[in-house]
């Protein structure tokens, strides 16, 4: 029910004009009150869990906030709510993918609680925070008052914290607190940004700040907002909370990674991007995004746990979007928007699929997922298409990456070259980690064994099929998506950069033939299937450099006729890419880059 209402209302807004509203003072007071309640709760959490970081960071924002309010600086902000085309795009993502994840969660949480053997259901609490998160995200993308933006930002922090610790294990508790303190760093940056806004432009209305004279003080303010965005979007050096978040039930990950939470950071950077065009600050933001993209793609190769790969992939793609937003040309802005849209559509599918598999196999290790295509054909096929959709043509995600490459390439030479170098390495590593996982899933047993048919609850099927359907339709009709969702956003501050002549998409420096590629993508495998039927062939056991034993072809005779079995295992290169080391390197470089960003903002 909620799903339909939210989805319909966001589509309704699509065809509306810019929508402005200032709620009565009572609402403002209510938000103020709730904000301090929220901070009070964080403080309580900090004290109860004896976490000095949480305590300190909460106090660091509560006191300045109180002073800010006492002076009455935030009172004359008008308008409080502004809905423009960027908000609408975000709204569509949140309100279509979000509710589908919630539908999926109805089935998942039932199974999950059966697994845990809970006597009393805790689902009420779970869905409360899931829906609250959707609500807060909606609020976040329409707030023009930085104060309101900050409030909704903190509500998403709260929901995230509560959802990660939902299972109440020790690990969940620890990871939730990590997510909390990292998000609170963002909160502190936000409060500081409010002060900057007040002193530099005498306003905390986003639309005023964006058009104000860009003094270096104001640039620092935008730098602070970018810092807050990095915490939410899990860029280096704040990447680890999103990895920790995978201890939560899978729908939480699906929601955080696809349509909510992490998108908030990208949204904020997209929001401030027009105001920092051509500054070194913007370039520094791009560099952090590019660095994150490259390093997480390498880290994803080393992951043995399904959700670990997905998490690194999310962080990397967010990095790519931030890279594009930072390059800050009309084309790169369009690339960021396209990636944002298609990433949420694809990542949702993968997390939901991974959750189903995990509940069936009781394992998150992808080595245990060998030959899943034979065991869970429906779920696996959906995931396979989702994976192909992440990195191969003709899907929308790859189109976004292609636009991004064109955009980076067409930025000024010597600034663009380091960025594109990071990008092409990341891009190739992305191909590697998806393709190896994809291949591993398709291993089929040589002799068909009888296995139980795959039974899926209706909400599972509904949510997976709908999301996959939307992804494919949007990818085929990408011209429609670009003309109706992306270009209207560009027109305001950048001017249209993408055109859709004939059968493809044009960036001015290249053409992506969407329709012919899709036609080939469908026709080629169909001919392949026909050919396979025609030529056929008997299935034989593999070559093992020794006599095969048995019909399954899983063992062979070796020295002195002894029987020897073999296994195949994934490639993780974790002797080369040692996760701890690489991640520590990433955090260190990330911290330096953030420092560099502020230095560049000042000068």
């Amino acid at each position, binding site marked *: 029910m909620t799903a339909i209402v939210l989805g319909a209302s966001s589509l309704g807004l699509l065809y509306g004009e810019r929508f402005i509203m200032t709620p009565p003072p009572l609402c403002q007071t209510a938000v103020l009150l709730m904000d301090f309640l929220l901070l009070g709760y964080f403080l309580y959490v900090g004290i109860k869990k004896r976490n000095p970081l949480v305590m300190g960071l909460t106090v660091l924002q509560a006191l300045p906030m109180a002073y800010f309010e006492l002076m009455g600086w935030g009172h004359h902000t008008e308008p409080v709510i502004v809905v423009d085309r960027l908000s609408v795009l975000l709204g569509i993502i949140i309100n279509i993918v979000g509710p589908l994840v919630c539908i999926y969660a109805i089935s998942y949480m039932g199974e999950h609680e059966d697994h845990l053997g809970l006597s009393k259901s805790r689902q009420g609490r779970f869905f409360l925070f899931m829906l609250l998160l959707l609500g807060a995200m909606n609020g976040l993308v329409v707030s023009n008052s930085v104060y309101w933006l900050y409030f909704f930002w903190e509500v998403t922090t709260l929901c995230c914290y509560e959802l990660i610790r939902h299972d109440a294990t020790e690990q969940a508790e620890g990871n939730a607190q990590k997510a909390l303190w990292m998000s609170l760093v963002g909160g502190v940056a936000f409060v500081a940004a409010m002060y900057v806004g007040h002193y530099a432009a005498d306003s905390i209305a986003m639309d005023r700040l964006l058009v104000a004279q860009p003094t270096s003080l104001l640039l620092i303010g935008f730098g602070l907002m970018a810092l807050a965005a990095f915490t939410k979007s899990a860029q280096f050096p704040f990447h680890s909370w999103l990895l920790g978040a995978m201890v939560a039930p899978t729908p939480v990950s699906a929601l955080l990674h696809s349509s909510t939470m992490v998108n908030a950071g990208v949204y904020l950077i997209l929001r401030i991007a027009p105001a920092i065009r051509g500054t070194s600050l913007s370039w520094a933001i791009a560099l952090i995004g590019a660095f994150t993209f490259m390093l997480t793609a390498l880290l994803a190769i080393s992951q043995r746990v399904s959700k670990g790969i997905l998490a690194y992939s999310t962080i990397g793609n967010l990095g790519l979007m931030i890279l594009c937003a930072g390059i800050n040309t009309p084309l790169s802005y369009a690339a960021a928007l396209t990636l944002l849209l298609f990433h949420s559509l694809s990542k949702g599918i993968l997390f939901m699929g991974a959750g189903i598999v995990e509940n069936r196999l009781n394992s998150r290790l992808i080595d245990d997922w060998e030959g899943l295509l034979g065991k869970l054909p429906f779920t696996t096929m959906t995931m396979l298409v989702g994976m*192909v959709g992440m*990195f*191969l*043509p003709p899907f929308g995600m*790859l189109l976004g990456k*292609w636009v991004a*490459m*064109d955009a980076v*390439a*067409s930025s000024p*030479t*010597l600034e663009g*070259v380091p960025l594109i*170098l990071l990008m*092409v*390495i990341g*891009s*190739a*590593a992305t*191909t*590697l980690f998806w*393709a*190896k996982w*994809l*291949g591993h899933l*398709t*291993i*089929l*047993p*040589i002799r068909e064994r009888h296995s139980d048919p795959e039974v899926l609850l209706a909400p599972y099927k509904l949510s997976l099929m709908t999301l996959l359907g939307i992804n494919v339709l949007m990818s085929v009709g990408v011209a429609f998506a670009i003309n109706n969702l992306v270009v209207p956003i560009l027109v305001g501050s950048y001017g249209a950069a993408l055109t859709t002549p004939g059968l493809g998409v044009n960036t001015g*420096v*290249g*053409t*992506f*033939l969407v329709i012919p*590629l899709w036609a*080939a*993508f469908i026709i*080629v*495998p169909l*001919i*392949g*299937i026909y*050919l*396979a039927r025609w*030529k*056929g*062939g*008997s*299935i*034989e056991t*593999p*070559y093992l*450099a020794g006599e095969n034993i048995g019909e399954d*072809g*899983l063992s062979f005779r070796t020295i002195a006729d002894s029987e020897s079995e*073999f296994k*195949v295992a994934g*490639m993780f290169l974790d002797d*080369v890419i040692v996760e701890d080391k690489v991640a520590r390197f990433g955090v260190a470089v990330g911290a330096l880059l953030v420092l560099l960003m502020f230095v560049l903002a000042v000068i």
Partner: protein
Amino acid sequence: MNENYIVNIVLPVLLTLGAPVVGGLLMGVDRKITARMQSRVGPPLIQPFYDAIKLWNKRPVIASRLQPVLAFSYLGFSLLAFGLLMFRQDLLVIVFTTALADTCLITASLNSKSPYSYLGGRRELLSVLAYEPVLIMAFLSIYMVTGSFLVDEVLAYRMPLLIQLPAVLIALVLVLIVEMKKSPFDVSASGHAHQELVRGVYTEFSGYTMAMLELGHWVKVTLVLSIVTLFWAPNLLIGAALSLAAFFIVLVVDNSYPRLTWRSMIKTTWGVGFILILANIVGLNLMGVI
């Protein structure tokens, strides 16, 4: 009008369909030259075609139900990538399309549960990791000079690319070695069997599926060589001579170097390739060309 129709549609289609023929002949040349370098006589020039036809007519044996579909998709998408080049389309889209073809090959080799094939598939992935970034960087430098990723525009560019991008061409030769699965970068499979690898990605293919892989491989080699041709776009005959020269260099290298491990492969293609391309770009920038 009529002439346009021939140049814009009929010719590219014919060229695309001709790619396997050209590729097969190149493979024949390869075997002949290699044999001469090793003081052998070598097979006839059209031996690769005899081989392919023989393979096609063998008793069909497959390793899994998906295998033939994926093998054909590899061929089909390789042809698609080549077709995009002949229709003078976007260079980056061509790379992504070859990645699609590669993924089909890799999936086909991973999905037949066989240790050698699996090992080959993993190494094929590493080969993609080794050459794809270099190839994209090379295209980037072409873009910086010509102002477009469209082959159409690159062909229309007046000055031969070789004059402005000599180092990039050398980097492309590295890519060509990996794509042709030639020593020292033949880690995933090669023309002849290696002890620890058997035939790598190709191990579990036989008969008609193997024939399709061979054809796909020919098309891909022709694709990279055609890209080398672009380096003398004003006169494509000189361009073709250039690509044949590159082809010959690859054969010389193949016969003079032992194969490396995948680590050294990535170190070499990235290290040497990136440095060459970056030096070229920075040089052009200092000279004020871009």
